[in-house]
């Protein structure tokens, strides 16, 4: 359960979120809204990358502002640009990097990494230079780097924005098959058909919160 209790946020004078009250228990939730409406800010609060100026956030009862470490262990995060998420030279090493605090030996880490890569269609790329992968493969790799830690929640901030249509679909099919609860921020509205809940933000407020069809209808009307 992810709870936002009367959450507000401002950068200096500028208020970017206000009066957000949400209890997210569904398996697949999406945040949509115009550029600058506050989606990324809200999503980042789930793992404590941004702390709310007012109100509080709870992830399975844990407050990221106090228990950041525990929360981040439960919450994986995939960003838009895979180039910024991949920190090791090869795909295998990058996934293994996530496991550095797991207590596993180097050999076990490498084996586990190879397993996850194979599971997600990157088998055979473990020793491949990560920066030579295609955009879609890099985003997959970023996802593998999170999944190897087996989080309960996966927050994805526009993970498909830089991908072509095919990779977008592939990435979403993959998300759909995961055990993890997923919170997806996106501008690709046609990917949301089978989501459980879609939340529409506008000017830092929740203006619709419903099943995909009515929520997206509201959003489209908002845009005019």
């Amino acid at each position, binding site marked *: 359960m992810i709870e936002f209790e009367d959450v507000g946020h401002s950068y200096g004078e500028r208020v970017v979120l206000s009066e957000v009250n949400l209890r997210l228990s569904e398996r697949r939730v999406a945040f949509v809204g115009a550029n600058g409406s506050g989606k990324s800010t809200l999503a980042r609060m789930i793992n404590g990358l941004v702390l709310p100026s007012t109100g509080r956030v709870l992830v399975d009862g844990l407050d990221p502002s106090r228990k950041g470490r525990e929360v981040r262990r439960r919450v994986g995060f995939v960003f838009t640009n895979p180039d*910024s998420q991949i920190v090791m030279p090869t795909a295998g090493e*990058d996934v293994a990097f996530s496991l550095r605090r797991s207590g596993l030996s180097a050999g076990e880490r490498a084996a586990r990494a190879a397993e996850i890569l194979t599971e997600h269609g990157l088998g055979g790329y473990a020793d491949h230079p990560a*920066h030579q992968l295609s955009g879609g493969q890099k985003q997959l790799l970023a996802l593998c780097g999170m999944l190897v830690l087996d989080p309960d929640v996966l927050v994805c901030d526009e993970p498909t924005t830089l991908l072509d249509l095919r990779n977008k679909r592939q990435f979403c099919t993959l998300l759909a098959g995961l055990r993890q609860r997923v919170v997806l921020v996106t501008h690709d509205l046609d990917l949301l058909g089978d989501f459980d809940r879609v939340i529409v933000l506008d000017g830092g407020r929740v203006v619709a919160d419903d099943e995909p069809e009515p929520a997206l209808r509201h959003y489209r009307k908002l845009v005019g």
Partner: protein
Amino acid sequence: MLGGWYEPGSSPLHRTPAGWKLLALLGLAAVVFVLRSPGWLGGICAAVVLGYALARISPRSCLRVARTLGVLVAFMFALQWWLLGLDAAVLVCLRIVAALTAANLFTITTRVDDVVSAVERGLRPLRRFGVRPDRLGLLVGLTLQSVTVLSKIAAEVREAAKARGAQRSVIAFAVPFLIRTLRHADELGEALAARGEGDR
């Protein structure tokens, strides 16, 4: 960096433990900078080239090394010849060739992960002086990552400037390059935080 990255293989050089290779590389670098005899230096260059054959490096990678090194050495040679004379130029260039080809052979045949664990093991005694060996792997990875990301950003920014007919403008390059570099640093920091770096 001559553009060589780890290439999987099973040659004797691939199988030598990373720590020994690193020590050998450091030793070779030290020797190369002490030696003043072109004959010996030439011999070392030849030995390193033999190393490429021993490691069965693909001709494509060898060519890439040769090309990058060729340009660099030609430039250095001309400069040194002009500044210091022929003898000194030959000496400097032989040193560069020996050190860089050896370093590149090392990166091609050694996984970064292995280097890092080797160095971590080597540095463990320093832990009581506050050195954090586990941070080293990250440092190495990030350094390599930054090189590729920054060159990608530079190339894209240069293209964009060219598209606007501003290839000679310093501002058209520097401003977007700086902004994108800073943004990359920001994103990288966030991604690391999300992966638990900084949580202790």
